[in-house]
């Protein structure tokens, strides 16, 4: 049944954002658990393929070439935010530096226990990065700082906050929302929200 006078937040019908999305100017905070507070000095990221692994601390990461991208981001809860600017280390740079094999699947884990999975091709062939700055400043803890994964061409639940581990594997293992009924891949332009889409 339709509720008279209820629109929800304004949603854009423009084709500038994927179907079913509305544009928001603010940056909603969505989290499946408490905000994790980690100082850059305590933060570490491990990249591994089962045979080779390398752990980066904050300084190690900043020793790698940084890139800046401006991109739209899309949350499965229907909001999109346009023209966000992120600075960080691209995943392909990181994987090359770590010397890991490009096995087909990745499971990404966060401080606090969150996980998500995605094809390695989506990490290395597009704009995916370990982001350390957002719109010119540090990334706030509530948005995943000090460092988060950013995979802007997939729904934002793939862009794990407080990232601590990326494990490459021949076998696919599903993450937190993927296990719970969300789409395994999550392409916003094909509106792949749920497993049934």
């Amino acid at each position, binding site marked *: 049944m339709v509720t008279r006078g209820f629109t929800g937040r304004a949603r854009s019908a423009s084709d500038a954002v994927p179907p079913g999305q509305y544009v928001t100017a603010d940056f909603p905070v969505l989290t499946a658990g*408490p905000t994790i507070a980690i100082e850059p000095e305590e933060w570490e990221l491990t990249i591994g393929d089962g045979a080779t692994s390398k752990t980066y601390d904050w300084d190690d990461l900043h020793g790698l070439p940084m890139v800046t991208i401006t991109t739209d981001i899309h949350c499965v809860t229907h909001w999109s935010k346009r023209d966000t600017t992120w600075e960080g280390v691209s995943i392909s740079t990181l994987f090359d530096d770590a010397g890991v094999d490009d096995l087909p699947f990745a499971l990404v884990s966060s401080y606090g*226990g969150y996980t998500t999975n995605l094809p390695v091709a989506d990490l290395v062939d597009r704009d995916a990065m370990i982001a350390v700055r957002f719109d010119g400043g540090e990334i706030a803890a509530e948005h995943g700082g000090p460092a988060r994964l950013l995979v802007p061409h997939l729904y934002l639940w793939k862009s794990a906050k407080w990232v601590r581990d990326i494990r490459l594997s021949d076998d696919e293992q599903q993450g937190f929302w993927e*296990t719970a009924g969300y789409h395994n891949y999550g392409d916003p332009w094909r509106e792949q929200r749920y497993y049934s889409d």
Partner: protein
Amino acid sequence: MSHVDGNAMIGALSLAMGTDVADAGGVCAACGLDHPLAEAHVYLRCPGMVMCCPECSAAEIVLVEIEHRLMLTVRGLATIRFGTPAQS
């Protein structure tokens, strides 16, 4: 935005489980805390509803409503105790 009480998820959880869980208790699989589900911490500002242990914050139950079907994932409860008064 922070968490709310387990209460906020009891209705949908009862519907999913087919029995009223207002008085149900659970044992966290991560830290072993025995607690009423109504005292868990619930996060609603996310793609689904997530119930977390009030002690160690491990995710215990994830509930998603997909096209009018409820999908329940019990990730982190060792035990769920139905129908008896919750002990704290």
